[in-house]
């Protein structure tokens, strides 16, 4: 059993050391060979190969670190935690298969995983059917609430809308380019933003929407178009939901064509410290990103986390990013909820998770809400020469995650509350019935 988990871990060389380290921990933990009942298994469902490996491998590593830390503290309910790592290989149907394998075969207590929305949608029915628990750590488009999924990343109102507000208020932006990769997250986010901007009195000719395919590499004319759009006499900004590999050529082209942040700032929702690691950031100083966490945040919790992370990966240059913080929060919430419930039984844990509150890394507490989203602060940061973000704005309080956007006609009447009497993910407040649009 232990072997299955580690075999896929061994696929990447870097994990080798980590896995070996864990093996030692286990050996030290149990004098006699442990039987399966003495451990609580935790599934890690992140792509370690294929296109998404670039982002997801890090999350697998951070989960291994968190589990190791917890085991040093004595595990959960007196039992050690045992990570089970599988590799869904950036292949969406495989995500569902691997999720089923984790839940039915390995009998994991909870799964931490997925990055893209399509992978989450692919595993969702599996988790609902087998009644297990998934922690999803990435910012996403909202419009979903499942009893079995806990969304520790940002909903659109915890990232996109505060970012747009910041640009409008602090930078006086009046013209907007909404540029994104062509799939569900950018399309939904841009739809929400478009409605929001129009509700704020922005005219449709002051909004330009542009979609590009995954991995788009030739940005010459799009950047030129942005420059052209930005020279209409009004302050212009780009709101970028460009995802993954396409970002590097996009930012390189911006730098080469001399689009400076002081003239046309670009605020990105999918570019973090990891993505910037592959770019020379000198021409990009001042471009923005909106997240709920930056590595540069100066708190005791954060510097402790970074120190542990760099020690764990044996690399003092490794950066941390927002989805890692989301896993940190999610994992601690799960531990707390399991201890509160006194069991790893899914139903008990799902019920006890709501209302659990744990420290986040930005100097406050995040709480799990009845809609299975969490409260987080929203930070806006500017890119610095060293590839880090410098926080230029932070919401005064915590922002409550809103799964059904108020700016989309289909979802503005929907709420989600998974507590006992209502227990519904799409309750329509107009009709008073559960079941508006999809789940």
């Amino acid at each position, binding site marked *: 059993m232990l072997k299955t988990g580690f075999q896929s871990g061994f696929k990447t060389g*870097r994990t080798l050391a980590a896995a070996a380290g864990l093996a030692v921990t286990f050996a030290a933990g149990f004098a006699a060979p442990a039987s399966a009942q003495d451990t609580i298994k935790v599934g890690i469902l992140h792509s370690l190969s294929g296109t998404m490996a670039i982002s997801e491998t890090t999350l697998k590593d951070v989960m291994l670190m968190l589990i190791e830390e917890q085991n040093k503290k004595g595990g959960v309910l007196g039992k050690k935690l045992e990570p089970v790592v599988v590799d869904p290989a950036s292949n969406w149907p495989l995500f569902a298969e691997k999720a089923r394998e984790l839940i039915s075969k390995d009998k994991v207590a909870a799964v931490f995983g997925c990055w893209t929305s399509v992978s989450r949608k692919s595993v969702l029915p599996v988790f609902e059917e087998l009644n297990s628990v998934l922690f999803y750590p990435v910012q996403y488009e909202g419009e979903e609430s499942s009893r079995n999924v806990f969304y520790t990343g940002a909903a659109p109102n915890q990232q996109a809308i505060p970012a747009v507000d910041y640009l409008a208020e602090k930078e006086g932006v009046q013209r907007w380019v909404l540029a994104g990769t062509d799939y569900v997250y950018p399309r939904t986010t841009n739809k929400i933003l478009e409605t929001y901007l129009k509700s704020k009195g922005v005219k449709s000719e002051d909004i330009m929407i542009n979609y590009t395919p995954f991995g788009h590499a030739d940005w010459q004319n799009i950047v030129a178009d942005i420059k052209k759009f930005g020279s209409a006499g009004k302050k212009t900004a780009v709101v970028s939901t460009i995802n993954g590999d396409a970002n590097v050529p996009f930012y390189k082209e911006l730098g080469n064509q001399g689009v400076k942040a002081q003239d046309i700032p670009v605020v990105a929702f999918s570019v973090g410290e990891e993505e910037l690691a592959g770019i020379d950031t000198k021409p990009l100083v001042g471009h923005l990103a909106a997240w709920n966490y930056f590595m540069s945040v100066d708190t005791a919790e954060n510097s402790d986390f970074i120190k542990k992370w760099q020690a764990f990966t044996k690399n003092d240059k490794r950066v941390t990013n927002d989805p890692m913080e989301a896993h940190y929060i999610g994992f601690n919430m799960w531990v707390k909820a399991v201890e509160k419930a006194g069991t790893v039984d899914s139903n008990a844990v799902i019920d006890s998770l709501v209302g659990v509150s744990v420290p986040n890394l930005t100097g406050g507490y995040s709480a799990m809400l009845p809609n299975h989203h969490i409260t987080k602060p929203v930070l806006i940061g500017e890119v610095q020469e060293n590839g880090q973000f410098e926080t230029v704005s932070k919401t005064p309080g915590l922002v409550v995650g809103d799964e059904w956007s108020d700016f989309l006609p289909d979802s503005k009447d929907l709420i989600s509350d998974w507590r006992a009497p209502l227990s519904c993910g799409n309750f329509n407040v107009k009709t008073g019935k559960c079941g508006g649009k999809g789940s």
Partner: protein
Amino acid sequence: MHRAFCWLLAAFLALAAPSAFSANLGAADLAPLVRGLGAGSYADTEKALAGLAETGDPAVVPVIEALQAGDLHIRKADGAVVVAKRAGNGYALTDPLTGAALGEADRNAVEKIRINNALRRTISATLGALTLMSPDANTRRQAAEAVFKSRDANALDALNMALAKETDERVRRAMTQARASVLLAGDASDADKIAAVDVLKERGDQDALALLNGTANSVSNGGSDAVKDAATKAIASVEQRLALWGAAQNLWYGLSLGSVLLLAAIGLAVTFGVMGVINMAHGEMVMIGAYATFLVQEAFRQWAPGLFDFSILVALPVAFLVSGAVGVAIERSVIRWLYGRPLETLLATWGLSLALQQAVRSIFGPTNREVGAPSWMSGAFELGGLTITYGRLWIVVFAFLVFGALLVALRKTWFGLSIRAVTQNRSMANAMGIRTARVDALTFGLGSGIAGLAGVALSQIDNVSPNLGQGYIIDSFMVVVFGGVGNLWGTLVGALALGGVNKFLEPYAGAVLGKILVLIFIILFIQRRPRGLFALKGRAVEA
């Protein structure tokens, strides 16, 4: 040196035009203002900056420049604002106003004064107004450009004065345009404004258009009808000019994309086109070339940071040899057993491509690697109304050089002759004493090596990640099939045509639909002409 100039200049200005500046304060009087820069919030810094700008004293220029460069720090011990530059493990401190050395400090003893976008804008506007009299023509021109953007009415006096003394024609033009921009933004007489509109019409670029649009639509700042008329006419003329240049710009983008496709496909034209091997691992050869570039650059960073600009030139032969060697190894170990079995070759090379990707991912990690651009490949220049980035320009040149070199190699060398002999009639070539197996391996190595060269170029514009090759494999096959298998000229024409069509469609159809349309176009084209644009005739085809 620079400081001495500033002082001379300050003295000169104080004598020449006392009225231009409200006050010329000594270093002692400026000190509290400078100290204010470190007061805390961005708003405080901005206020202090405005105070400094108001003095109009050139002595503040180095202070503001240090703030812009991020060298200005607060000494935590006494709250003094100092210039701190990296020196060993700590910082070497100097006084921002006098330049006097203040000793060294530990990294934790100073705190950087941070700036945000709003401050960056204010800084460049302020610097613009203050450096109009700089002895360096380039600085003066940049200053004029900064004023053009900031449209700061307070800079008008300084601008007039600088204009009166200016002798350099290019700087003069920039200053005249800056003056026009300031005049249009402020309240000048109609005649002045109309003259300003003419100046902007002359400039005729996007920025000028933005200003003219603002003027034509302005009701609030008392724009008279005469000015509006002039602006509207100027807009029409500028727009026409821009539309022309826009078409030229699209052509350039098409050429540039075409050259990237050419680079990616030309290696495939050898392995697939000449040898007939469906090599799905071609993209990975490109990726290996890019990683070779990364390694070469790391070596330069480590041992010869001063020669970094040459790293790309060194990377070219390295990438060629590394990718070529991997190619030969693949041919010897896998492909030679599969000649004449295209389906199995396809599957085997596809598996190889996955294996290579994962191998690179295990060695270098899944994240992007930073490949820097040498200074001669970064930035852009203006050619008329065209913006051409140096990186793209060099890639176009490089693509054609590689194409030419390959053509010569195939036509004029003994090796090329053997390749052609083997592809045309293997058994005959064998009978003539050509070691066909060796030629096969070397040909495959040549194609892979060229893919490695493409990797060097692509590392400049794309991610250096294990997935780099995947993005180009489909496009490469499209180019080769469209151009005509086995014909290098076909590959050239195919690449440029596809690049051009793509860039022509993109503004109308968007990037996603544009790609789909190109694909449909190729499918239809292949229906009509299965052998591509330039079909080979004769025995080689039937073989």
